[in-house]
């Protein structure tokens, strides 16, 4: 039976037998991924939908490892392979054909991991840790884009040790996303630059940030009709997400909304948490956000409504992703360093959970 099918009324116990007694670490009673990373999870990503019958999940972690699982339709996860870096892994991405995984690390290198041969080779080198890695597949070229804290954005042919292009950034790269033919990079000092990737990567325009505080995550979304990338959602360190169209038809199209805030325990002060990751649903165009508050939320940006908010987990949520079909939502719970090393509780172990989500992310019918 398919657990990620149309209905979300499955019972976890049917898969794993007994339910866990401690519900705080798994507040939504979702499916746990087997043998999760030992340290904080920096990034989770599903394989592209080129092999519809097979779904893989990779996760990069601060324990220097990248792990790969096969996700079966029953919800069972089978650890398949893993690779190691010299430092914490900060980002991962898949090649478009789903045969290779690219990994970026604090050891200032990026690697290409061939899953068929289980061989990893270094493909990029920076002067500082690499924060983002993305695969670009254009009709006339394909390359890997790496963004680093050394204030450069570099493009690599995977066979050469020299970059085919290096772009100077105004500040350290904090977040990036790529959907051909568009790339967007968020930097320190609230910099925001859009690149167009046709023919060759080129700066398209710089945007004044719609947010007041540090950029933390960015995700590109598509236009529903043309299916071309038209804008992006930008997450802030202080509980806010900006929806920004590159060419808005009206200035009112762009807006920001508050999220990952809670009524504090004392005097009704509002507590604001960082938005750690944003992911768009491939079919519905709705989005999910995960935050330092240990919750995930689903949103409909067109209806400007919240679809759902999760219960609170015992750890912050650091990363989230939808699979290609849009029926599985993966999210990782682990410490995100939002309270410095003083806030690091080594007793709380990181987890990755899978949730059947297709119906939960259907756009709101109230307004259309």
């Amino acid at each position: 039976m398919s657990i990620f099918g149309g209905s979300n009324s499955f019972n976890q116990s049917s898969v794993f037998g007994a339910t866990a007694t401690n519900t705080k670490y798994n507040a939504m009673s979702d499916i746990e991924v087997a043998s999760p990373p030992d340290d904080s999870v920096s990034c989770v990503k599903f394989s592209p939908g080129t092999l519809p019958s097979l779904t893989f999940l990779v996760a990069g972690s601060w324990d220097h490892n990248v792990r790969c699982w096969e996700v079966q339709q029953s919800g069972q996860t089978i650890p398949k392979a893993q690779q190691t870096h010299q430092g914490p892994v900060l980002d991962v991405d898949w090649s478009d054909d789903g045969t290779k995984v690219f990994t970026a690390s604090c050891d200032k290198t990026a690697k290409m991991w061939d899953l068929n041969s289980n061989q990893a080779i270094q493909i990029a080198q920076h002067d500082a840790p690499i924060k983002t890695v993305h695969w670009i597949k254009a009709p006339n070229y394909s390359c890997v884009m790496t963004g680093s804290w050394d204030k450069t954005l570099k493009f690599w042919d995977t066979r050469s040790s020299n970059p085919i292009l290096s772009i100077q950034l105004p500040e350290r790269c904090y977040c990036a996303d790529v959907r051909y033919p568009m790339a967007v990079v968020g930097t320190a000092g609230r910099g925001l630059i859009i690149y167009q990737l046709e023919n060759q990567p080129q700066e398209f325009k710089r945007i004044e940030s719609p947010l007041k505080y540090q950029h933390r995550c960015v995700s590109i979304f598509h236009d529903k009709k043309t299916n071309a990338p038209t804008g992006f959602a930008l997450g802030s360190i202080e509980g806010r997400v900006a929806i920004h169209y590159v060419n808005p038809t009206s200035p009112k199209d762009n807006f920001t909304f508050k999220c990952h805030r809670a009524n504090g325990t004392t005097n009704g002060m509002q507590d604001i948490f960082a938005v750690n990751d944003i992911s768009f649903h491939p079919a519905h165009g709705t989005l999910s956000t995960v935050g330092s508050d240990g919750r995930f939320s689903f949103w409909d940006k067109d209806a400007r409504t919240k679809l759902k908010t999760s219960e609170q987990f015992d750890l912050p949520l650091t990363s989230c992703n939808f699979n290609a079909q849009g029926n599985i939502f993966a999210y990782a719970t682990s410490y995100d360093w939002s309270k410095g090393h003083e806030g690091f509780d080594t007793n709380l172990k990181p987890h990755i959970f899978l949730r059947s989500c297709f119906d939960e992310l259907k756009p709101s019918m109230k307004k259309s």
Partner: protein
Amino acid sequence: MSEAPGSASEWELSKENIQPLRQGRKFASLSAALKPHDGDEWSKIKEEKQLFEEELRTYSGDDPLDVWHRYIVWTEQTYLKGGKDGSLSVLLEKCLAQFQKVEKYKNDERYIDCWIKYANCCIEPQTIFVFMYDQNIGSQWACFYESWAWHLEQLGNFQRANSILQEGISREAQPLERLKRNYGEFQMRVARVMVSSEVPDTSEEVEVQRSALGHLKTTGKRSHVSSDRVNSLKAASQGGLGTKGKPLHQQRGQMFQVFNDENQAPVHSLPPQTGEWQSLPQRSVINKENDQKPGAWTKARVPQKSGVVPFHAVGGQSQPTFSVLEEDNPDLHIFTPRKVGDIGSQVLSARKPGKQMDPLLHVRMAVPSNSEPQPMYCKEKIYAGTGEFSFEELRAARWRKKMEMQVLETEQKEMKRLREELEQQKKMISEQSEMIKRQREQLQLDHEKMILEYQQQSQIRQIELDRKNNSQIQQQQEVLERSIDSHLQQQINSQTSFQVMQDTPSSNLNSRYYAVCVRITYCIPFDSTQKGLSNGTINRLK
């Protein structure tokens, strides 16, 4: 004209771009900072800045001010133009705000230094000094009184400057010697100013000379200039560029008489330190009476009295047509919401010039109000210094530090291991040498023993040999004696046959004696020849 060497000429060319510092600048950092902003030097500066920013966030020792102070001094030395360039004032504000409640820094020289630096970049340094005095910040340091007095002296407020320096001396601010010397110099300066203001321009008369860019006084129809150009210039010198280096306040003193309230308490007594000044002073609070109160612009009227308005100014009308507005409720105080500059980002438009900012606005501790949202992350670490850091960067910095420590540790371990190995080898070698030494000693001993044994043996052998020889000799002697005896006997026998009547025993004795004598005189060796010899002897004897 000789070309000055590289860096010196560079400094000559951009002198006016450098903000002078009272304590001066280091030439090395000056020339480095003057290099074009795209070279290696500049990227090195950026790198250094990044390192400072990282250190601010990862410092874990018990003296966090140290990093801040080093960073501030470095910024001051590196960013020459002052002002917004290096965000020095932002740094200072953050530093002061962070350590304001830390008791141990209240009289720390570095912290006081930061305060003084901050006062120097403020529009109204007095406010800062008064606040410091009230809060007892830096009251033990001479530099506090010196800087305060210096600022007052610049304003021409000598009396107050004097009282402040005196206060410093009476409190025995450290270093006291320097403060006293500065006080003496201050008094000298004041005296000089007093003298020069009372007897104007006496010095000017003596060294009068022709200066550039002055008008020359002409005489006659053809406007000839006389040959005495120095004196003719003097009269016109007011119009030219002044060459007098007189400070502004001297002249100001001459312009008008300062009102002196005679009933007032002596000026030089400083206000008592109440310590009540809990909230940091806002400019609007201290300077209340000098600020115009905001009101509705559309209804604003200039309060005028009809009698004062000159006739021509109102265009022939003797009475104004409008009514003068008397403010009904002058206490109504509406503040337009002030937008606080977004700290740490320069993306938004630059601050407008001349806008009066409250000097202590950013230093004031933000009092969290109940309704305000609370950021639930380590904001002070993210936005420390002038830049921002992400969570991952903080964590990576920590990770790197740990890795470096690990590398260091493994290196140390390796070193220790090597050292131990060396030590062991040394020990082994020393043991071996000991063993060798012992062996040698043993050998020596053996050798000696052997020698001794040998000697003993040889002695024994000698003795044996001697004994043997002796016995042989004895034997031979005996044999010889016997044979001599027998010969003698024979001779005696034969003699007795001839001289029987002679005294037999004596002749017998004589002959024996003779034989012994023969043997001795011939020195007959006791050897194989002995027999022959003895035979010979015997034969001869015969």
